[in-house]
């Protein structure tokens, strides 16, 4: 992977999701699918081969009533920085055809649909199950093709896809910024579809390196955690929760480490 | 695979990996060229030689 030309200070786009605010309504999932032309099946009951770039998990503290608690956890691609944050994400380092790449400019893990030949090694490598294979060619209900987003290419059968942090929105925003003679984006100029769709404002998106962006401080909160930090995948999606059992659910612990 | 592919960079990884590959391919290629070339020469150019010489 070539070092990219870096005219500006490297950005590290990421998310902070407040799980105590998330109601599990699924608006983020719907917005994501509509924004990114994510295909669906006629029968979506079998979830193991459904494509959900952003998936909302339902977590429980496994306690009986009346102590039962529920938490909804939206899981986009974690855009891992990999060990040492050098861009050696679990998936990027294994892709044999350089079809997925780590942008040193934005910290976003891309997927090049026309390059992917469907070996699925990246899926095997991703512990978050954030990568999805197109088991079928997309079939849109009659007339729906007119509503597809022109900014995102539809994908064909036999390749892998995943959340791109709505990268096309970044490109559009950057085009506009260059046109206006700016090299930097304002925080609100580039926001993902899920962030904007969340009615509870649970999702905050921005440049984790930029002190002017909300995520910069949010990620430092004492209740912030990331999924599977012990694996050193270095995700760029942070979660917030005041509930300890939720934070503990973010990683695996040995018996002796439990409390 | 080739230096003119845009992914190619002249770093250690590429030199070791592709070096090993081209080294192996060269040996295989030269070996087969020798075998075929010699067989061709012995059969069609050097007709005086015994057909079953081993």
């Amino acid at each position, binding site marked *: *992977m070539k070092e990219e030309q870096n005219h500006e200070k490297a950005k590290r786009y990421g998310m902070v999701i407040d799980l105590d605010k998330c109601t599990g309504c699924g608006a983020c999932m719907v917005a994501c699918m509509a924004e990114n032309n994510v295909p669906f099946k006629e029968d979506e009951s079998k979830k193991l*081969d459904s494509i959900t770039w952003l998936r909302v*998990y339902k*977590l429980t503290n496994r306690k009986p009533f009346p102590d039962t608690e529920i938490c909804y956890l939206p899981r986009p691609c974690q855009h891992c920085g990999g*060990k040492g944050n050098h861009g050696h994400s*679990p998936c990027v380092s*294994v*892709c*044999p*055809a*350089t*079809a997925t790449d780590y942008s040193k400019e934005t910290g976003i893990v891309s997927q090049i649909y026309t*390059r*992917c*030949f*469907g*070996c*699925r*090694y990246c899926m*095997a*490598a*991703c*512990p978050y*199950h954030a990568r*999805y*294979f*197109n*088991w*079928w060619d997309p079939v849109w209900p009659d007339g729906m093709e007119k509503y597809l987003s022109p900014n995102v290419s539809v994908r064909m*059968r*036999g*390749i892998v896809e995943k959340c791109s942090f709505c990268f096309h929105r970044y490109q559009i925003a950057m085009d506009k910024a260059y046109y206006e003679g700016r090299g930097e984006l304002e925080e609100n100029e580039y926001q993902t579809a899920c962030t904007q769709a969340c009615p509870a404002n649970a999702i905050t998106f921005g440049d984790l390196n930029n002190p002017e962006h909300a995520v910069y401080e949010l990620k430092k909160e004492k209740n912030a955690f990331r999924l599977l930090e*012990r*694996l*050193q*995948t270095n995700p760029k999606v942070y979660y917030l929760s005041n509930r300890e059992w939720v934070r503990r*659910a*973010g*990683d*695996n*612990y040995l018996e002796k*480490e439990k409390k | *695979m080739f230096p003119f*592919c845009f992914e190619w960079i002249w770093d250690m*990884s590429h030199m070791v*990996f*592709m070096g*090993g*590959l081209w080294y*192996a391919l060269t*040996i*295989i290629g030269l*070996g087969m060229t*020798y*075998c075929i070339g010699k*067989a061709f020469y012995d059969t*069609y150019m050097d007709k005086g030689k015994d*057909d*079953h*010489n081993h």
Partner: protein
Amino acid sequence: MDSALIPKGVKRCPTWQFALWIGAAGAVLLWGVFAMLLCWFKGLNQTNMNDSYGFALWIWADLAVIALGGGAFFTGFLRYIVGKDELKNIINYAVLIGFICYSSALLILAIDIGQPLRGWFIFWHANVHSMLTEVAFCLTCYFVVLTIEYVPLILENRQIDKVPFFHRLGHNMHEIMAVFAATGAFLSFFHQGSLGGVPGVLFGRPFAYREGIFIWPWTFFLYTWSAAACGPCFTILVTWITEKITKKKLVKQNVIELLAKISGWMIGTYIIAKIIDTLYWAKVTAPAAGFNLMDFYSNNPFYGIWILILEIVICGVVPALILITEKGRKNPVTLMTGIILAVLGACVNRWVMVLQVMAVPVLTFESWAMYYPSWQEVATTILPVAYGVILISLSYRYLPVFPQEQELNPEA
């Protein structure tokens, strides 16, 4: 009818019987080809793979046949580089079996990828950091080497040998076979190893991940070692099956025993390394990721601790002990038990390192994923077996595969 093609001094079954045999294997082959075409034309929705099981039966079959096909490179290494001359009596068959295994592996890979027409991207747009790239390159190169090793045998066919050019070509290739064998051993070391690297580097999957040296996880070395150890056992097993079907002794017992002895020591040393690797992983690597050993072997309907015991003790320690001891090798029953267990051991190891890796949940709020193959996956996995049977049958009938056959069956 085809007697002019059959090697001199050996007896083969009547043509009608051979045709029936090939017909039966051909029917199975066609079934597999039908399933293969379904996968190519309709896509991988024909399989039972899913987003939790991106790797499944095919990748296991791929890894297993490559491990078992390792008999070719290791026997070649012993014959041409180490100089174990007796092995010349089984090297042809080892090469043939290796050729079948590797061509099967390439075919399975061609079915397994979602966009087969883009298969060449792995070479053209190679990411040299990916273990799979190394696998693809070395596997393809080694397949070329195996073809080069198999061609001289084809050229020895009675009719082909009459053509002076082919006769000389075969002779020349024999002369420098050591060069090809050494190249093959070099390539095999890397592709067998990088196949081990495929699961070993997955630092997001604590069941598979292993530490290592430089860029290579320990599984890199364990895979090469186990392929060198168990591959020759597969050669012996197929030779034994061939002998049973043809009702003839084809290779002298001292040759079999020599190969079995070397295999025994290889399995013995391999299994010690494997036990050390397992202990280190169970005690250090996995706990660092928050996993106890038993987290990987409980709370699911299939992957119990039995599979670890089966792999390491029953199919590792036991065959090693049998094949190392002279008594074990001299007794045909224990010899074949050891051989079959060793072959099974390599297959179980590859199964675990592919399927169980996919099954184990990593996120705490996910559960075990189970999988069973579709008939299309089964058929395409049996396809190479039928193809192997046909190629072995044709080679046995028309080529001098076994140099000792005439001597061992003088009545023919």
